């Protein structure tokens, strides 16, 4: 078969083999002989990327080893793997050049691009990705910068607008929070979008007066009894007051105005007459205009602030050459060269033509990312040659990263491309039929569910949720879908029943879930079981409860390491080191196993405490965090296994941080502690019961899934900003952004002809609700055999919009209560039978190697060397001297030394001045005073000392002269050849008399200030170790006795020669 061509979009439901179809496409390409480097496959997490590569190899390897597997592979690839040898060949060719497989995350692909195009994009040459911690610090700094730039009065006004007329004390914190929300939107919108609310025009004074007069004169309608309606009268008073007092929000919130807005015919059972309606409509309009104007001011203020912030934030990041992942697609689409031939440009930069693009999890792609990839995708999709392909897989139902910018509508859009073949996969290879039946029931007809009727956003989301019924590949597989209920009532103080608090319900659900899991594990010990939750905070308590019951459980999404007491104490100790006045930290450390290690006791003297703190600070500075924490470790010797394990993770965390030099160099104690508190660290293990968030479970599957976090309200805290894109097209610009207001204000605005805010709110809410539906879908489709819902009883009449209600209505178990667990039709408890026999017992922690015993010796290989000149160094040297510049004195010394070494014998020394000067210059010893020094050298040669050293006459007979001769000798007597230290040195001058078996060493020294014998003797003593080492070395070289060698120092400046004893 030929290579796959053209463009395909695979809409793959959960469990239908998304990765499988992607790897199939990849393998088809490879089998058709496409060089792998021409294929780019991207996904969203590194883990997923690793998995794709794993699967590619696993399929080939299995086929190479096993005929059945080969046949399977061959079938899926349409006959290109006729033999196992062929499979082996494909596997081996790919593996030999595994680097050519460009299977990576979309982020890393952008990193590659941004590095390659750094010069064209104008990125910092050494840019790097800023981690979240540093980004947050830069954000803080940018907010402070913005504040500094304007006068406080100015910001007061702005803040008031930002915070809806309230001026909170926590200025910095408030601003940072609002900037976080608004910044990404700011980057995707222009100024007009922030001024798109178009509220009704504000009423002028005259109109307001007229209305206020009309209100004053308005007579409430008469009751049937002919009396003025009292309710009307009272309401009217309120309206007048509020109108006069400009209390617009309350004005439109209730009373007659609210009825008029809602279009109701009557208020307080009395019809609203047309004149009344007109009057109140006018009043509402005034209110709407005022509130709208206020919102517009807020929007303007927000944008203004974010605008300033953006500039400062960018500058703060740029100072350090930092970029965030989310900056990359923007930077890349900012490339002025993007008009060029994309594919060719990429090929040149990346050293490969990209002919095939495979995109995984396409629903999570953000518009910004797509803008970068789309030109390439379009080019490939439109190619008619059959040499290129575009392939993308996704599931709009699993789009749970909306908060990160992922937009499922992109997938829908691509599926509509004319050249694209669209396939959809609905057969699940994962779940039992009963599980799929339940999934079908829940999602098939969402918009008809009573749970949705009162929530416009939810309803819109439900309508958008495209669901085709799933069917099971393995139709005979048994399974169970069940619901377990907890008591939703509690007793109040007087013992009367009342609705239980949210926390009480959560806690009851957790307890029931744990109970069920315990029972399940008892029946099906070999099954994998997961409890999936919506919120990370639920994980800790669940894991704890499971472990308390002796179940091997692990929390997978990652908590901060502070979930272990040992880590908390270690952090307190570090904090105390930096802040000794934190008595809470003192108390904490003093009552921990670290107390003894650190010598910190409760009630000890403050000065002593301070000095301990300082010692610890010193330790951290000198040895680093990892080593410091390591030194804490023995203190936790008898902590529980959990504590020990988490503490290990802490050390690893420190190691990783310190491996990153840029981070380590500036990391203060405060920063380290803050980072540890921030960062979530997984605790991977083989425990058969996993507890994790639904988000973390994406892409995973389990034999049994328990959902116990269903009773929370969606959109409990609605976002502060609402927005939408033009025509709701994800690639179009953001059309409008606004701060949100209350329901009644949105309605009042819409009533007054300004529906924008309501539309924005609806769009925003729809997106959020869509995400929630996807989350529920992901959660329910993780199960292979059993799906259990744990929830409070759901009142059949209540229209609450939460997952529990949706599920209960769809599956028909509303109204059930704690006593009556519910089973879905078709459930078959016998599924557990296949998982009955207990598996191999879980392997515990391995035993670390305790002892490595070598047969002999202790030395490592690489020899160290010692130099005699270093022997003179022992003892404290003032840094002042060490750092002193090499002054003229040193330079002069070097020159004299150099020239003296030129002399073999005084008598035969003929070098002229020019030659000597040239020597000095060639040796980088030129400069001022050179000639004067030379003159001094000439004078020096005429001294007695020079004669004593250099004159041939002092050495009658046949002698050799060595000048500046280096030597290298093994240290010690170990001549056998084992590696060891060597001694390295150089003699200034040696005269060897081989006949007499004698030798003489002279070392030139330029010590200054040698006035008087005492001083000379002192310097001789100072140099003695070096000279004696030379003598010993020479003795070995010449195989002479040391006593036959004289070692002398020639003090050039003082003109004396002294023998060393």
């Amino acid at each position, binding site marked *: 078969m030929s290579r796959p061509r053209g463009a395909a979009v695979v809409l793959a439901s959960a469990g239908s083999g998304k990765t499988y179809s992607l790897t199939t496409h990849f393998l088809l390409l490879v089998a058709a002989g496409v060089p792998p480097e021409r294929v780019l496959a991207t996904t969203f997490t590194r883990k997923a990327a690793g998995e794709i590569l794993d699967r590619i*190899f*696993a399929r080939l*390897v299995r086929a190479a080893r096993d005929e059945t597997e080969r046949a399977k592979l061959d079938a899926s690839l349409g006959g290109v793997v006729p033999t196992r040898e062929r499979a082996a060949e494909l596997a081996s060719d790919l593996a*030999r050049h595994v*680097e050519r497989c460009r299977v990576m995350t979309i982020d890393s692909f952008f990193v590659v691009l941004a590095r390659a*195009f750094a010069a*064209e994009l*104008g990125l910092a*040459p*050494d840019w790097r990705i800023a981690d979240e911690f540093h980004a947050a610090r830069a954000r*803080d700094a940018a*907010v402070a910068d913005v504040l500094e730039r304007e006068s*406080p009065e100015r910001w007061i006004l702005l803040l008031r607008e930002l915070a809806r007329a309230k*001026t909170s004390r926590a*200025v910095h914190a408030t601003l940072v929070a609002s900037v976080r929300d608004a910044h990404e939107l700011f980057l995707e919108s222009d100024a007009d979008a922030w001024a798109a609310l178009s509220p009704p025009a504000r009423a002028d004074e005259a109109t307001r007066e007229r209305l206020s007069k009309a209100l004053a004169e308005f007579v409430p309608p008469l009751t049937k009894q002919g009396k003025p309606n009292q309710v009307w009268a009272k309401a009217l008073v309120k309206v007048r007051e509020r109108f006069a007092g400009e209390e617009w929000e309350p004005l439109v919130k209730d009373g007659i105005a609210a009825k008029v807005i809602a279009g109701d015919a009557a208020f307080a059972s009395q019809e609203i007459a047309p004149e009344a309606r007109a009057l109140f409509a006018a009043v509402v309009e005034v209110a709407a205009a005022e509130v709208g104007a206020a919102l517009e001011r807020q929007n303007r203020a927000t944008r203004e602030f974010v605008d300033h912030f953006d500039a400062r934030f960018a500058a703060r990041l*740029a100072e350090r050459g930092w970029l965030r992942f989310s900056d990359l697609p923007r930077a890349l689409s900012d490339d002025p060269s993007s008009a060029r031939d994309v594919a060719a440009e990429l090929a040149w930069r990346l*050293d490969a033509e990209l002919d095939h693009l495979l995109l995984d999890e396409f629903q999570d792609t953000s518009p910004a990312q797509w803008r970068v990839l789309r030109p390439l995708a379009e080019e490939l999709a439109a190619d008619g040659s059959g040499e290129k392909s575009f392939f993308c897989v996704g599931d709009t139902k699993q789009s749970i990263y909306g908060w990160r910018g992922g937009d499922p509508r992109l997938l829908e859009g691509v599926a509509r491309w004319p050249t694209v073949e669209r396939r959809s996969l609905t057969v699940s290879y994962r779940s039992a039929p009963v599980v799929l039946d339940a999934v079908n029931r829940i999602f098939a007809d969402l918009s008809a569910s009573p749970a949705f009727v009162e929530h416009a956003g939810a309803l819109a989301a439900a309508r958008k949720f495209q669901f085709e019924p799933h069917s099971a590949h393995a139709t005979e597989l048994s399974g169970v879908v069940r619901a377990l209920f907890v008591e939703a009532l509690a007793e109040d*103080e007087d013992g009367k029943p009342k609705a239980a608090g949210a926390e009480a319900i959560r*806690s009851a659900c957790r307890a029931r879930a744990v109970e069920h899991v315990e029972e399940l594990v008892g029946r099906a010990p070999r099954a994998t079981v997961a409890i999936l939750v*919506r919120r990370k905070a639920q994980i*800790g308590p669940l894991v704890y*409860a499971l*472990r*308390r019951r002796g179940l*091997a459980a692990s929390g997978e999404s990652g908590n901060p390491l*502070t979930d272990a*007491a040992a880590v*908390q104490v270690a*952090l307190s100790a570090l904090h105390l080191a930096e802040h000794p006045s*934190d008595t809470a930290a003192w108390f*904490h450390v003093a009552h921990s196993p670290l107390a003894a290690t650190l010598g910190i006791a409760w009630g000890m003297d403050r000065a002593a405490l*301070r000095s301990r*703190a*300082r010692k610890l600070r010193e330790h951290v500075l000198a040895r680093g965090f990892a080593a410091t924490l390591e030194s804490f470790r023995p203190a936790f010797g008898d902590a529980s296994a959990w504590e*020990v394990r988490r503490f290990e993770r802490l050390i690893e965390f420190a190691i990783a941080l310190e*491996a990153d030099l840029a981070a380590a*160099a500036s990391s203060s104690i405060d920063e380290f502690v*803050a980072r540890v508190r921030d960062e979530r660290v997984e605790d991977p*293990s*083989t425990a058969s019961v996993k507890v994790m968030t639904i988000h973390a479970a994406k892409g995973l599957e389990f034999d049994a899934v328990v959902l116990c976090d269903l009773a929370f309200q969606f959109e409990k805290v609605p976002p502060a900003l609402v927005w939408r894109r033009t025509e709701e097209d994800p690639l179009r610009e953001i059309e409008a952004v606004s701060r949100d207001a209350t329901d009644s204000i949105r309605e009042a605005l819409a009533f007054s002809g300004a529906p924008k805010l309501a539309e924005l709110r609806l769009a925003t809410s729809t997106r959020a609700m869509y995400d929630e539906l996807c989350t529920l879908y992901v959660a329910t489709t993780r199960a292979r055999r059993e799906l259990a819902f744990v929830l409070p009883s759901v009142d059949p009449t209540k229209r609450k919009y939460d997952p529990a209600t949706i599920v209960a209505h769809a599956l028909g178990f509303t109204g059930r209560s704690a006593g009556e667990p519910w089973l879905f039709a078709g459930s078959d408890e016998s599924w557990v039978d296949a998982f009955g026999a207990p598996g191999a017992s879980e392997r515990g922690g*391995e035993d*670390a*190697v*305790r002892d*490595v015993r*070598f*047969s002999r010796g*202790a*030395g490592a290989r690489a020899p160290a060397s010692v130099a005699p000149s*270093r022997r003179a*160094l022992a003892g*404290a*040297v*003032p*840094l002042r001297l060490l750092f002193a510049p090499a002054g003229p004195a040193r330079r002069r010394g070097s020159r004299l030394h150099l020239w003296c070494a030129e002399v073999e014998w005084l008598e035969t020394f003929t070098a002229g001045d020019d030659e000597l000067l040239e020597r000095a210059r060639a040796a980088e010893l030129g400069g001022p005073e050179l000639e004067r020094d030379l003159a001094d050298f000439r004078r020096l040669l005429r001294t007695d000392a020079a004669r004593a050293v250099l004159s041939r006459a002092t050495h009658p007979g046949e002698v050799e002269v060595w000048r500046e001769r*280096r030597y*290298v000798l*093994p240290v010690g007597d170990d001549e056998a050849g*084992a590696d060891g230290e060597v001694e390295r040195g150089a003699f200034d001058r040696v005269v060897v008399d081989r006949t007499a078996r004698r030798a003489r060493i002279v070392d030139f020294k330029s010590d200054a200030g040698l006035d008087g014998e005492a001083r000379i003797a002192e310097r001789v003593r100072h140099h003695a170790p070096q000279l004696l080492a030379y003598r010993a070395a020479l003795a*070995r070289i010449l195989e002479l006795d040391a006593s036959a060698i004289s070692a002398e120092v020639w003090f050039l400046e003082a003109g004396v020669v002294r023998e060393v004893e």
Partner: protein
Amino acid sequence: MGEIRREFLGFERPLLDHVVERWCASLAPDADTSRTLFVLPGGRAARELEARLARKLERSRPPPTLITEGRLAEALSRAKLRFASPLERTLVWRAVLAELTPTERSSLWRGADGSGAPGGPGSLARAAARAFVELAGHALEPDDVAAHLARTARADEARWRAFARATAAYRERLARRGAVDPADAARHVLARSLARSDLHVELVGCVDLPQSARRLIATLALPARAWVFAPEELRDAFDAFGGLVIDAWADRDIPLSTERWRVARGPDDQARVVAEQLARLAPELAPSDVAIGVLDREVRPFLERRLAAAGVDTRWAAGRPFGVTALANLLGSIERFVADRRFEDFRALLVHPDVETALERDLGGSLSGLAETLDAYAAASGPARLGDAFAPGAEQTDELASARDALFGLLGEFVRDARLPLAAWADEFARLVAEICDSVDLGAQDPGGWDRAHDFTAFAEILAELREPSIADFVCDAKTALALVAERIASVELPPPPRSGERPNLDLVGWLELPLDAARVAFVVGFDEGNVPRPATESAWLPERLRAELGIGAARARVARDVWIATVLARTRTTWWVSSKKSLSGDPRTPSRLVFRAERDMVVERLARAFVDEAEAATPGAATVRPVVPPKVAAAPLQRLRVTAFRAYLASPYRFYLEHVLGLVTVAPRVLELDALRFGVLAHDVLQAFGESELARSRDVDAIEAFLEARLKRAAERALDPARHAAVRVQLEQLASRLQRFAAWQARSVDEGWTIEHVEWSPRAPVLLETRLGPLQLTGRIDRIDRHVTTGAWRVLDYKTSDGGKPPEKTHRRGKRWVDLQLPLYRHLVRELVGDAPVALGYVALDAGQDDDLGKLATWKDEDLAVADAVAREVAERVLAGEFDEVGDDEPDDPILAALCGFGLAASGDRADAEVDE
């Protein structure tokens, strides 16, 4: 041209031993061994060869010279070359680039047309320096690249022409200063015919000698010799210089043993595999028989830990980065401080242990508790920067001022806005560090002392660079000088300390050093794709395809070299290979492609191990947990209790115990604005002054406003730092606007007949709360007590500055439960003042809203208050009885208090907060 003889030494023996033996044997009796130049690929190999020569070469012969490839040109030059120091190179590049036209600069790097460049000054210079070094190694000129691009009609020609101009200017400037870029040395020697003619060059295992070095060797007068670590039958796989023929190696199979290849789970697991195998093999070996090659720096700390636990010490032969030493940290703190003068950095400097010691020396020990002082001041006065003065009214002002002066004395020119030549900065650095760190023992042999000695020696070298005449007169400010030094420091590696004594000792070495190492047993750790072969460094200017077209393709050459290394390791010793599936951060890893350079069946087997079978080794099972018991110590029973403390007890008896019985206080590490407490204190100070003033009875809103404003200003000036955070300035404005609302309300309340009778009032006689366990004294200070002029009614008011402005009913009770007793208990405090008269209780809410009615009086009935009293008595009893075990549900904001209360622990049971997150 001198010829090159190749000697193929086979794979039977370690290369260096073999070279030494053959070379020594080949020496003529009268050969002058000092004229031999051995060239080795790395410093470690050079040292090993030297040691072997020291043993094998007759002692009477002078030792030959040994150098690494990088120093070849220098060693072959007749004239001593003055290499430009790194600093000099940096500065010259900067200057040269600045002299290009804006168009040229922006053709080099978009955005570099102006004065700055993306990434700050120097970043473009670094990019240029890198490109220069790379081209020079390949003996290419930028113009060659430009010409090539022009020929192939590529777009970047302008860039390379600009770079050519910069390069010429760079060389020219260096030459004017008599200096050469080390990377350019070979070209320099050739161009000036400086090569010595009297040296025998012996290339030892130099398989990828750079082009520039080859050119130089090719011109030598005496024949050179290449010692090749491979058998004769691989002749054709090596070129004339004994270098690898890339095509002969890049795709070759590697005979590594499947039995000795492991796939581990992650870094720690790799370390475990090594430790296990080592424990098994060690009894047959000496430490010197073992080499551990670490290809992945992530694994190193784990190896060190695992082996240390097994009784073996390790040394990272590559040394440690200067950038993470205490000295570098100190300089970094100074740099940060000098840049912005942020208070945070001021603090960091003062509590740096060495600075603290130095200051104590200067100030005679008067600085104890400086850390505390700084924290207290930061919290109370909100300083953003170190300004000219401190808050005059703050307690810590004097102490801080003297510390500041002492510190400034130490910092000298660094804090004086000086612009000095680099040589002068060098003196300043020298003075500063010498004053702080005093002296050093350069001969120290203990690891700490040894490290310190090398820190300072390296620093002295950097100072010498600053003083080099060619740059010594470069004038700059302190910030630039510090940044230059920091950049230098970041590139220095310090040698590892000497081995310790008794325990067996292993060196951890790099991949490139392994082949020439003589160990019989080698471990290759981190044998993963990405670690080996290393990916080509992504270069913005030299994409790999361009490199390939220019014949300097880096990627394939690197693969060829790595295949050779792996082959050597596989053929010449027992080598264990450890790959892994995961990185430290949990990201997936794949074994190196080199593992799969084998026969097809073997590849399938290996692939199965890596991708199908479970990675070996146990993953830890679930760990047991144990509940954590909050610590307690015996404390003297309380005699008295502030009325405000009841709230704390009701919320959490244990936290009450911590904060009110033990009196623990916490310190926030970062202060960016005033916290609720300090904000409230400011407001209270102003309002107290107001209550005591004449204006307390005034109805003149303007006058009151003016008074409050002036008072606030004064209070702020006294209490707050002049260089306070901008957020604090905004907070003050806010407080001012809250006080404006207060002024209006106050005037109205005078209108309504209320007079302020007392402010900040406390009872004289003790007020006792009788309980079954005896009396407890109630204490408290009441913000304000009003009396009505006509009715004589009393009201007790508490100023509240929290944002919410909740009425007392909401703050004191949750449902029917009393959660705060402050106002009800005020009734008892004021008895001595009001007798049995009824007292109204309430707040004056200086909240964040815009409501004019600040007065919020409570509407409790007497029955309610009676319950409150009963609750108070119960609390008092429980306090007296020492009942503090209960922790309550609210997690304290402070993480340490939270930890003490047991929050956040996996082992703390059923607690979880409610917000939805992803």
